[in-house]
């Protein structure tokens, strides 16, 4: 057993090294004064100031944040409805179809989703004149659609693991469907809704392929700008941008872990008593 657990420690350790080595090297080199990545020219914040002076990147980032905010919000509303319907409505006609439509977007290759939505928008414009042209609106619709699926799955699994007695008690006490949902169910599934919103926000902020298909001229999102810059070659500002984004996420996750660890130690202490 001893040798086996040493083997496990080493292989798992290598796995974590594999996960973090490229990220750490990116962070370190974002502070490199020299433009050549191999040459260490000393510490510098030069690329950060260049990043904030780059209007193309800043505008694209603002557009991406706007799209991500609206899509995540829409996705949370629609996805919560879908998750609720799937786990609380019992069997109904078309349930299989809805559950299929909710899970399939999660694994669908992005090129297919992107192409099919673009062709739909073009066909709809030809038939009904809406949406006229492509841009922010079509990207928001596309992002809402695939984020909705993630939210629905998260909400559904939260509802499935939660017992229905609280809702039944509220019903027995005479709560109407609307107030039952908003006063009992919604607060209980709030953690799932918040994580669904955050996940949708990051997925939307990160999407390159689908946005490339459904956006119009002059509507480049941040990933589209990064992709074209990275393809062209040396891009020290991108290192700075990546570091900033990683820092934001890391702070959020560390905060969440700290919270969970506190809860875990609390539970252990309670168990000891």
């Amino acid at each position, binding site marked *: 057993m001893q040798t086996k657990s040493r083997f496990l420690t080493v292989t798992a350790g290598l796995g974590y090294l594999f996960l973090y080595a490229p990220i750490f090297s990116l962070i370190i080199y974002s502070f490199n004064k020299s433009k050549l990545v191999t040459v260490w020219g000393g510490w510098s914040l030069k690329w950060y100031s260049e990043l904030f002076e780059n209007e193309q990147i800043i505008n694209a980032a603002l557009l991406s944040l706007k799209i991500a905010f609206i899509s995540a919000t829409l996705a949370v509303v629609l996805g919560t409805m879908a998750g609720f319907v799937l786990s609380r409505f019992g069997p109904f006609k078309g349930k299989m179809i809805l559950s*299929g439509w909710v899970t399939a977007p999660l694994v669908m290759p992005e090129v297919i989703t992107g*192409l099919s939505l673009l062709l739909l928008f073009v066909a709809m414009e030809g038939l009904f004149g809406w949406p006229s042209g492509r841009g922010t609106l079509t990207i928001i619709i596309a992002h809402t659609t695939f984020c909705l699926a993630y939210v629905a799955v998260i909400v559904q699994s939260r509802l499935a693991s939660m017992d229905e007695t609280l809702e039944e008690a509220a019903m027995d006490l005479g709560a109407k469907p609307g107030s039952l949902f908003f006063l009992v169910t919604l607060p209980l599934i709030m953690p799932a809704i918040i994580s669904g919103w955050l996940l949708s926000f990051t997925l939307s902020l990160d999407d390159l392929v689908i946005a490339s298909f459904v956006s119009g001229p002059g509507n480049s999102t941040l990933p589209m700008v990064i992709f074209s810059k*990275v393809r062209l070659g040396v891009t020290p500002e991108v290192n700075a941008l990546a570091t900033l984004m990683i820092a934001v996420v890391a702070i959020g996750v560390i905060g969440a872990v700290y919270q969970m660890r506190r809860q875990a130690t609390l539970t252990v202490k309670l168990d000891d008593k």
Partner: protein
Amino acid sequence: MSMSLGSAVMDRMAAKLQKYNFVKKINWGRAVVAGIPTFWLGLFFFVPFLVVFKISLTEAAIAIPPYSELLEWDLEEAYISIKINLGNYLFLFEDDFYLDAYLSSVKIAVLSTFFTLLVAFPIAYAIAKSDGSTRVLLLALVILPFWTSFLLRVYAWMEFLKKNGIVNEFLLTIGVIDEPLIMLQTDFAVYIGIVYTYLPFMVLPLYSALEKMDGTLLEAAQDLGSKPTQSFFLVTLPLAMPGVIAGCVLVFIPAVGEFVIPALLGGADTLMIGRVLWDEFFLNRDWPMASAVAIVMLVVLVLPIMLIRNSQGKGEAV
């Protein structure tokens, strides 16, 4: 006035009826709540596939939009013509390029799914064996990169693997190699990219399967004289199988259609179908051909997609 009085009475009656077991009784309310997301997904997820299928049966044309009409009619002359073009599909099967692209995508996806499994298993096992706050920390460390930008993570590997990147510098310094290895823009880099980006999708289902495993089974196997490797293949692996399958499907499907990883890390000769579709659409502007490529890719992926749906239906953790 009488209208509002009437509706107030109606409301009260309806409320009485609905009071009991609201999720089972109200029909119109249910219909609206179920109808809105169904309508949205139907319009923006399902109908688009029909449109793609339709356009895959047309011909590329110099027009806006750039494809021929499938249906043409003239009511005055009672004339309808349907023009179905199977040429795109025939071309797909005649031209070795497309066949090679499908095969090579499936090959790359299968191999990288296997490598992902190899890397993910020890991590998932270590998480499942740890306890309390260490477990939370190890789990968070796996999920954290998933929350950062996928594109930037791929970019990190470009910087890492390139000719004058850190890996080469390190190997040169310690004297393992004399001249820099060409790692970027090769299939090797594509494998690394896929394993790297999809690792959490493999670790999480594996972890949730291993976590449920009863440790006493391993002790029993050991007591009965089984060696650690034997116990692994005869006890641990079979018990982890649901997680292995879920993880493999979750990695395999998106890997087949991957575009960004082969575009940034792969070489000019790294053939993957996602990239072919992209070029067909953005470079050749041949929408019907791109649609045919997408339809055939869907057919290839239908089986694994059904698999994941069934496992979700049974309530397996994914």
